[in-house]
């Protein structure tokens, strides 16, 4: 019998469940290694060589090299682990979270200061809120309609 996963219809959201965790084990453990200053230095000196020391998939390595956190998450990454890459790059949590929306840093910060992203339209896939697939990427980067 399949497991109950009532969270699959939440737009713009990947829940880090046991299945994602299994997929992302080596990716997340690589991230964990960046908590040591010496490892951060080795990674920065030669990212590809450092990544090749880990039993990650090629796609996971490409996602890390591209610093595409949405891609990392699809391949099993979890934001608290991925945050170690951001820390290595000198990025704040707000910069990391904002990078996943397509908004510029200023646009994302302004949204938060104005009270954050609205819930209306963003509860279920298929509504019309700004987190829905058809409205990506967000902000000025969004391709103009027609």
């Amino acid at each position, binding site marked *: 019998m399949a497991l109950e996963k*009532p*969270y699959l219809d*939440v*737009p*713009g*959201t*990947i*829940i*880090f*469940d*046991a299945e994602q*965790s299994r997929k*992302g*084990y080596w990716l*997340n*453990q690589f*991230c*964990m290694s*960046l*908590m040591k*200053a010496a490892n*951060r230095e080795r990674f920065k000196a030669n990212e590809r060589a450092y990544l090749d020391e880990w039993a990650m998939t090629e796609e996971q390595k490409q996602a890390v090299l591209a610093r595409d*956190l*949405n891609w990392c*998450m699809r391949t099993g990454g*979890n*934001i*608290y*682990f991925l*945050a*170690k890459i*951001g*820390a*290595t790059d000198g990025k*704040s*949590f*707000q910069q*990391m*979270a*904002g990078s*996943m*929306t*397509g908004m510029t840093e200023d646009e*994302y910060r302004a*949204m*938060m*200061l104005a*009270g*954050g*992203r609205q*819930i209306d339209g*963003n*509860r*279920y896939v298929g509504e019309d809120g700004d*987190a*829905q*697939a058809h409205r*990506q990427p*967000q902000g000025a980067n969004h391709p103009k309609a027609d």
Partner: protein
Amino acid sequence: MARITASVYTSHVPAIGAAIDLGKTHEPYWQPVFKGYEYSRQWMTDNPPDVIFLVYNDHATAFSLDLIPTFAIGTAAEYQPADEGWGPRPVPVVKGHPELASHIAQSVIQQDFDLTIVNKMAVDHGLTVPLSLMCGELDPKKDAWPCPVIPFAVNVVQYPVPSGQRCFALGQAIRKAVESYDDDLNVHIWGTGGMSHQLQGARAGLINREWDNAWLDQMIADPAACAATPHIDYVREAGSEGIELVMWLIARGAMADVADKNHPISVRRRFYHVPASNTAVGHLILEN
């Protein structure tokens, strides 16, 4: 005997810790947050606990994917502030209370909660930011936190996290455990994390002020009903990381009115502010 006299609830946003550590608390962005805790710092001074039982979650710091305990109680004599990738926070070492912690561990396990017992771990912003908010800025070398702390880590990183109901029942077991300890100790129990926030994907930055405040109303007035809130409601309404709020129900379950309906509790402080970085800040103090 030992007794729980109060519970404190607060968000534990890492950027709040950074604002304190970098001396930014008076900047216009942060001022409203810290003003919201001024009363609470005075309250801490006026109502000093002997021990703080601090419920928080580890954010891939002490626990990697090698080991994911649902509930972990710290029984060590001390805990070092962790290097989460930006260097350790410049705050004092956290002193534990091994005697009370191991007493609670034994009692709670005998009440059918299968705790993991931890004798060595670093503590991250989940634990140190609430302490800084409530106790103020302290010198890492010259100062000390006002009392020993028992860290209680809950898995809210890998789904499924424990249910609100499980957390609420655990709080009740912790209360019994504390009350069966012979020494006369004044214990505070703190629940931390939340409120609405999402740190991932196209929905990052989600805030739900209405839902947060309705949840707070219910948690204060009818915690048993609040504990029945299913996981999916937190995820959908308060964001994927808003699910941290289940930890508040552990502290709430330990309050006197849950064990005895006729025992009144009082709300000493309630505060809500948006934003701190990606997050809605919520804060409560309840007294028995």
